[in-house]
């Protein structure tokens, strides 16, 4: 589903954020991306979202070579990929429902269908009762879950998360991780970048480790199962 072939990323300042990265994530798989701060985790996710383009090598999403995706096609790629950040980037000028409905509005879905999907997504993150609230009235953990609901509302094949628990205490973090696991269990490919090693170890999943932009391990433990 996600494949990196010898991918390097050099920012215009000349800094090498990723060097010769190779890995493959199968459809329906769930993996963690770890490494010290500045190791290149966010950069790797940005390449998948086409927020940045690789300097060398190929990134493939579902057999599609991202180099060949034109600027005007990027929105359609992004509709296939849900993304969750440390800061959930909610819009405070509208309520929870409208925040979650945004991707569906963009896709031009009918209002009725939007209602169904939004409620399904909110139910999944346990916030159905808050649909009419302002995001400002929610706690940090709840805001993060609204962000997740928005990321999954149009049923993307892939869910990316960049430090999704960075702002949360351990109990809330565990909740969020459980949510990702649930989503994975219904077929979503999940890739979570985090430097929270303790959390990663609890989860017993495949781990991709970056060090100074190089992938030092893509978890030999799971290797056989996916290649």
């Amino acid at each position, binding site marked *: *589903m996600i494949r990196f072939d010898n991918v390097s990323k050099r920012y215009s300042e000349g800094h090498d954020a990723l060097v010769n990265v190779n890995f493959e994530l199968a459809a329906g798989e769930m993996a963690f991306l770890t490494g010290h701060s500045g190791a290149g985790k966010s950069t790797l996710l940005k390449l998948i979202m086409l927020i940045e383009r690789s300097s060398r090598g190929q990134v493939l999403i*579902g057999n*599609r070579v991202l180099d060949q995706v034109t600027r005007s096609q990027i*929105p*359609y790629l992004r509709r296939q990929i849900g993304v969750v950040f440390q800061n959930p980037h909610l*819009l405070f000028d509208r309520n929870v429902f409208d925040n979650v409905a945004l991707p569906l509005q963009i896709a031009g879905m009918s209002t009725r269908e939007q209602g169904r999907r939004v409620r399904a997504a909110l139910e999944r993150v346990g916030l159905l009762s808050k649909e009419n609230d302002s995001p400002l009235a929610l706690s940090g953990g709840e805001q993060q879950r609204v962000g997740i609901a928005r990321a999954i509302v149009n049923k993307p094949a892939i869910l990316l998360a960049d430090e999704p628990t960075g702002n949360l205490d351990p109990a809330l973090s565990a909740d969020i991780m459980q949510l990702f696991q649930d989503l994975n269990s*219904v077929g979503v490919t999940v890739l979570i970048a985090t430097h929270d090693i303790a959390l990663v170890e609890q989860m017993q999943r495949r781990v991709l480790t970056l060090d100074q932009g190089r992938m030092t391990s893509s978890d030999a433990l799971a290797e056989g199962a996916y290649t």
Partner: protein
Amino acid sequence: MNRRVNKPSAAQLSRTNGGSTKKPSNKKSVNKSQSAWFSSSVSFSSLVSALPFNAWVDHHRFSCVDSLKRLLSTPWQSMMTWLVVAIALVLPALLYLAFDNIRPVSEQWQNDTQISLYIQPKAQLIAIEKLQQRLSELAEVDTVELITPAMAQQEFQQYSGLGNVLASLNNNPLPYVLTVQATASNNTPEQLTALQAQLQNEVLVETAQLDMNWLRRLQEIMHLAQRVVLSLALLLSVGVMLIIGNTIRLAIESRRNEIVVIKMVGGTDGFIKRPFLYTGFWYGIGGALLALPILFIAELWLSSPIQQLAFQYESEYTLSLIDLNVVALMVMLAGVLGWLGAWLSVSRHLKHIEPE
């Protein structure tokens, strides 16, 4: 095991990519694997690349109404832009109006143009009267008036204040004069010049004088004025576009966060631009509507000097108010200018707002 049979993005993206329809088999496998995804049976196939037409219309309608609501929710801020736009529109409109009103007056002046025939000093009155009779029967000529030296002297005394100078002379030095008024259909500058040449050939006529220079000059001034109005209108149109563009830039800046989120979840540039284009449109329309009462007041204020001017030239004259077509044109033009200004602004600034 081969789990890579599930390639939803490939199938999905190939459809977004100009509608190429390869790998239909992938779509099937997507549906199957996604059927467990939520309780709904809807799968990827419900997401299509191009916005459905209905949704597109809906978003236009929504953007149109929502952008107006936003402007009205900050009335003072919006009013400032509307006022600036209004002033930029009033200026050329007012000049146009003045121009439109002066034109009939200048045409009136043109009608007043006459040819003065200064008669040979030795000519007999009876011969002069015969000439007057003959000339007045010409097709091009409307009226011919005889001014005797005595009448001319009297008039001269009355208007020049030099009456005493003339009175002190023993003989009246002024000649007989015939003033020829051409018919309305024969008084273009060219026709008058031809008539003047013809009259110059009359034996009794010493000089046939047509004071055309000022008429020509007036015409040139009118042409110049027309160009000035036009170029001013063009310049101010560009000004309106830039003003609205700049206001839109600020609006974009204040909605930066929203734009980033929309880009992140797959909003196209068109989707993001649309509300701003409508905002520009409403700035234009609002400015034009605000310009109308200002224009009306200016019209009233202008009407009295123009009417006096017209009165001096004995024309029956009423102020022509700016007509409804011009008003409609102005409002529409302003809307288009606002749209264009917003488009320029949004095209320039949207590129720089990307998710990080």
